[in-house]
């Protein structure tokens, strides 16, 4: 089915190539993981959800690891990466994209300060215990203040809470803004909707929470330590709530366009029954949204606990992590499938080794986990970490 009474698949000559490729798919994905993981840590620090106390620090470290790589896909995508800093130097404020550099870097500074406050006592301890080069590094991390008084601890606690509180709107800005970059492009019928920032934000929180569940379970399993089932239950309850909001808005957006039956539907109807049928309708909606939604409903409503809870939670989380990745793909690539000719669809081809191919994308997606592993060698992330229990 082709749009606007087209007899042949006519695409504008310059639309044959899809410019925004896998790098732009994983960029909002990683940014979303940052925002989602941060929200979990803030749920403890600000909203005092007691169950998340044990993972608040873990969530913060995870958010930091993802944050380190949020801008990498963009950099790889740029045709002139050596000029990337122009976005800081000649920031064109009419552009939705222009303040990304500032929003992102200020968010990273906030994240780092909060991490620093959280780990300051540990840095001080290490600086006192170690000697030689190690001592220099640990002391540098303390900024030379090697006294940890109860009074300064109180001040740090208040500051941490404050940072977590402004971190929530800031995480929302960071990710809602990524949605705005797409939602404000009036030339693209599949992107242009004011709901886009909310869709991006909700799916970000879903992916971040689900990813935390997977990482938590994996780390606990590998290190042979007990699972906090009450925490997992709570996390799944929140996750279910965000999945409901996310799924509803995504469906609502498409349904509105369908019901209005306007210009947008003339393009989106054929898009969804054509190039996006498998990846949107079948994969994203029917498999990766509906199944975890039902599984989480069972987990939350039925009093499932212990091992069954662990398995179901991880099953749902895995599907949701994939759902959001596929959703990013469907938005970014789907929008570009529609040629500006309004009379045809461009085809996307997966590349493997190219600059924006599957392999570089997988490497960038894997990098945060590697950094997490390295960090976990040096700093205690869970309360029952051996470095802490040994003391």
């Amino acid at each position, binding site marked *: 089915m082709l749009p606007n009474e087209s007899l042949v698949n006519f695409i504008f000559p310059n639309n044959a190539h899809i410019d925004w490729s896998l790098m732009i798919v994983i960029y909002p994905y990683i940014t979303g993981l940052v925002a989602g993981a941060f929200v979990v840590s803030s749920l403890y620090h600000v909203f005092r959800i007691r169950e998340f106390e044990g993972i608040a620090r873990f969530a913060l470290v995870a958010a930091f690891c993802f944050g380190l790589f949020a801008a990498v896909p963009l950099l790889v995508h740029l045709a002139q990466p050596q000029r990337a800093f122009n976005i*800081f130097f*000649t920031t064109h404020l009419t552009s939705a994209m222009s303040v990304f550099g500032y929003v992102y870097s200020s968010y990273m500074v906030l994240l780092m*300060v909060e991490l620093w406050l959280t780990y*300051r006592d540990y840095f001080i301890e290490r600086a006192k215990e170690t000697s030689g080069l190690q001592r220099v590094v640990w002391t540098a991390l303390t900024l*030379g203040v090697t006294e940890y008084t109860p009074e300064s601890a109180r001040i740090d606690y208040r500051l941490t809470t404050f940072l977590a509180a402004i971190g929530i709107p800031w995480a929302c800005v960071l990710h809602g803004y990524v949605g705005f970059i797409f939602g404000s492009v009036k030339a693209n019928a599949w992107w242009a909707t004011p709901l886009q920032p909310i869709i991006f934000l909700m799916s970000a929180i879903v992916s971040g929470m689900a990813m935390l569940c997977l990482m938590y379970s994996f780390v606990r399993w590998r290190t042979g330590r007990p699972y906090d089932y009450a925490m997992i239950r709570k996390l799944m309850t929140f996750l279910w709530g965000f999945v409901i909001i996310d799924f509803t808005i995504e469906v609502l957006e498409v349904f509105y366009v369908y019901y209005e039956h306007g210009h947008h539907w003339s393009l989106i109807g054929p898009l969804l029954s054509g190039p996006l049928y498998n990846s949107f309708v079948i994969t994203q909606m029917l498999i990766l949204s509906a199944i975890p939604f039902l599984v989480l409903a069972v987990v939350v409503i039925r009093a499932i606990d212990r091992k069954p809870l662990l398995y179901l939670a991880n099953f749902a989380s895995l599907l949701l992590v994939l759902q959001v990745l596929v959703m990013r793909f469907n938005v970014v690539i789907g929008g570009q499938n529609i040629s500006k000719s309004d009379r045809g669809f461009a085809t996307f081809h997966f590349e493997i080794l190219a600059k924006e191919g599957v392999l570089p994308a997988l490497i960038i997606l894997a990098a945060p986990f590697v950094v997490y592993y390295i960090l976990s060698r040096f700093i205690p992330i869970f309360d029952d970490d051996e470095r802490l229990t040994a003391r």
Partner: protein
Amino acid sequence: MKPSPRSHLYRLLLVLAVAGAGFVGLRQLAIPDSWDEEHWYRGDALDELAAQPSRFGGNASCEGSSCHEPPANHKANYDALSQGLHAGVACESCHGPLARHAADGEKLDHARLNVANELCLGCHQELIARPQNFPQFSETLLYHELLNVRETSPCRACHNPHEPA
């Protein structure tokens, strides 16, 4: 004297301030000198773009030029062209880009022209999307039929592109 419980925060602020100041300084250095703050672009870009050489010289450089002997004389062909049915067709429409054809009375670049039927048919092949009143080649045109003219027959045997009829 005991150190202030906030001393680590003061040091953090100092680190952030130094980083911030360094960034602001770097930014000042990195903004191009000719940057137009009002319309937000690099002013020098205009003249750099304008410096791109022209490949098509336009009729101005052929008009009145008496180069070459007849019948290839520029002036004669130009005058004939401007009075005939091809008036309005620029020299370079058929001859290609000629901005570097000649300078200072010296020939720099050839005006290559393949006078095959394709050149004529590029415009005059019969196509449904062409305007109805535009002359399009037809083998069934009475004159062509009488003379047994096919699409492959040399157009130039009868038609002079500079004075077509």
